């Protein structure tokens, strides 16, 4: 399978397309990007995820050439970019604010970059038509940006940045304003474009699902630093910190004390309860404070104590969130710790096995939980 094979970041001999080398960006005293070092490889679909204000746009703007680097170096294709103006970079950016030219029509906006290259008119027209079709904007070609909706504007911005078929495309929240259906379609379009053209994408998104769907690697950022970079599966299954585990998806965090036991750790989290066991290759030393991260869908909920499970805890159902295909049960353990367990709704709602105030057992295997430094 081609997808599993694409992992240049594991290949010692591969040269990255983009290199951040100890990059720091300060606005006055404020550190927006803090000594960041990161490689991004050609043909990657690199997603930046992180809370608002963590520096995602700043990273993109430095790549595009709109912000200078305070310290450190950014290299694109091995070339130091520090003094290269935006128009001399083989990079196109889709702006978070779209930045459409209000005095030009939609098709003129899309053609803008192509015209600067001095291509012949029929070629430009063909390309613009192609972009309009791709983003389903044919009907609006003659309108001005203020005459279309927010989502349509976003698609124009996307079309305009795609039109020049750049080597590196920076997308700052490209799909935020689209409805779910259109967003999914566009995501697949983007992946398709990426496959066909081999363009490298760096994409900022607030939508984890989107990052998971499109990205070859996901970087989780916080306060100007990258906390973890990994494939979508790894970042979900093997977060390296409580921050990442908590940021990506839903998770139960149990704080406790870890002592080495066998090929993992025993975690005591409350007095008078049996320790929880988790297999791990993480090394916390012999004995340390730790946090146990368990995804709700990996927690089973049963009425009777299961006989074979590695970890079992008893609790009481406080709340049930019905999500259609799934239900999330909020269970309070004896020590007051809240845990979430997710179960598929295989039966009709009125025949559900558990209800509020029921006493239940939660259980999970010894590989389900991840031991993290607290």
């Amino acid at each position: 399978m081609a997808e599993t094979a694409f992992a240049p970041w594991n290949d010692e001999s591969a040269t990255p397309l983009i290199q951040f080398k100890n990059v720091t960006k300060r606005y006055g005293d404020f550190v927006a990007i803090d000594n960041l070092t990161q490689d991004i490889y050609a043909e990657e679909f690199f997603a930046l995820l992180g809370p608002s204000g963590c520096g995602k746009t700043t990273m993109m703007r430095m790549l595009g050439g709109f912000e200078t680097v305070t310290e450190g170096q950014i290299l694109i294709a091995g070339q130091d970019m520090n003094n290269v103006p935006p128009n001399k970079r083989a990079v196109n950016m889709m702006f978070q604010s779209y930045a459409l030219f209000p005095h030009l029509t939609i098709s003129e906006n899309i053609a803008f970059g192509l015209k600067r290259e001095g291509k012949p008119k029929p070629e430009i027209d063909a390309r613009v038509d192609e972009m309009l079709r791709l983003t389903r904007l044919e009907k609006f070609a003659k309108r001005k940006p203020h005459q279309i909706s927010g989502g349509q504007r976003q698609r124009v911005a996307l079309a305009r940045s795609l039109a020049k078929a750049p080597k590196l495309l920076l997308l700052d929240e490209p799909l935020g304003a689209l409805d779910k259906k259109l967003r999914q379609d566009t995501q697949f379009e983007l992946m398709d474009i990426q496959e066909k053209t081999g363009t490298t994408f760096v994409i900022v998104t607030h939508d984890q699902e989107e990052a998971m769907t499109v990205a070859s690697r996901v970087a989780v950022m916080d306060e100007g630093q990258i906390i973890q970079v990994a494939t979508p599966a790894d970042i979900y299954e093997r977060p390296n910190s409580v921050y990442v585990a908590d940021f990506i998806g839903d998770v139960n965090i149990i704080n406790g004390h870890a002592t080495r036991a066998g090929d993992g750790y025993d975690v005591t989290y409350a007095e008078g309860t049996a320790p929880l066991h988790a297999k791990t290759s993480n090394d916390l030393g012999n004995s340390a404070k730790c946090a146990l991260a368990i995804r709700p869908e990996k927690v089973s909920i049963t009425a009777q104590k299961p006989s074979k499970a590695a970890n079992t805890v008893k609790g009481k159902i406080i709340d049930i969130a019905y999500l259609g295909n799934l239900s999330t049960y909020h269970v309070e353990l004896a020590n007051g710790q809240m845990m979430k367990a997710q179960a598929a709704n295989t039966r009709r709602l009125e025949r559900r096995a558990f209800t509020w105030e029921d006493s239940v057992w939660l259980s999970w295997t010894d590989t389900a939980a991840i031991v993290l430094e607290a």
Partner: protein
Amino acid sequence: MRRFTLIAVPYFWLLVLFLVPFIIVFKISLSDTALAIPPYTPTLDLNSGWEGIKGFFADLDWENFTFLTTDDLYWKAYLSSLQIAAISTLFTLLIGYPIAYAMAQSADEWRPTLMMLIILPFWTSFLIRVYSWMGILSNEGFLNQFLMWTGLISEPLVILNTNTAVYIGIVYTYLPFMILPIYAALEKLDASLLEAAEDLGCSRLTAFWLVTIPLSKQGIIAGCFLVFIPALGEFVIPSLLGGSKTLMIGKVLWEEFFSNRDWPVASAVAVILLLILIIPIVLFQRNEQKQREAEGQ
């Protein structure tokens, strides 16, 4: 009803300050000169009833307008005014645009100060400011003294009482009217548009040409009209700074009124001037309307 009152206010304003004076001037332009007070006939005498009104209208004719075509002084004056106004407008634009641009680029905390500096000259009487230009431009004036002191020239330059002085005066006087609308347009300009243009392959200069200029077009047009329209009928500047050869319709008008005391001909000159001005004013309004539509309001 409320709507009606709201609309009635500007219309009443227009009626009192524009239409009524215009009708009076128009009426005078159709009259004949007379050695009387006021110096024209006929005057409307409502006491003699219907016959009086009929007689009054019978006495009005287009004679003065015909007279304007017989003496080439008048159309030369109109043409020369148009030329002076157009050239001054161009210079005002060339000087005003960079100033407005610099203001829009300056740091936020500086902008109110710069704006003050632009408006500051209005705090002194217009007449005094034009007089001081006489002091600057005359043969013994500051400018010539300075240039001779630096050794750039040995003979004083003759600037005062030439068209050059008129251009300087008009550009100086109307510069704020050019700067302010352009500044207003440039200030609204979203900096990310220029970044987008650069991102798509423009140099700074092409980005300026393809984005900044088109997006400040409305400001440029507004500024040009605000300068061109008053400059066309300008009287004070050509009389004080211009020479005997400077021909401007405002000056002709003044002379007809006050030197010749020929109110009817002067009124005819004024009516024609107004007609000439109406064309750019209508164009200006159309432009404003288009802008409002373009902004989607």
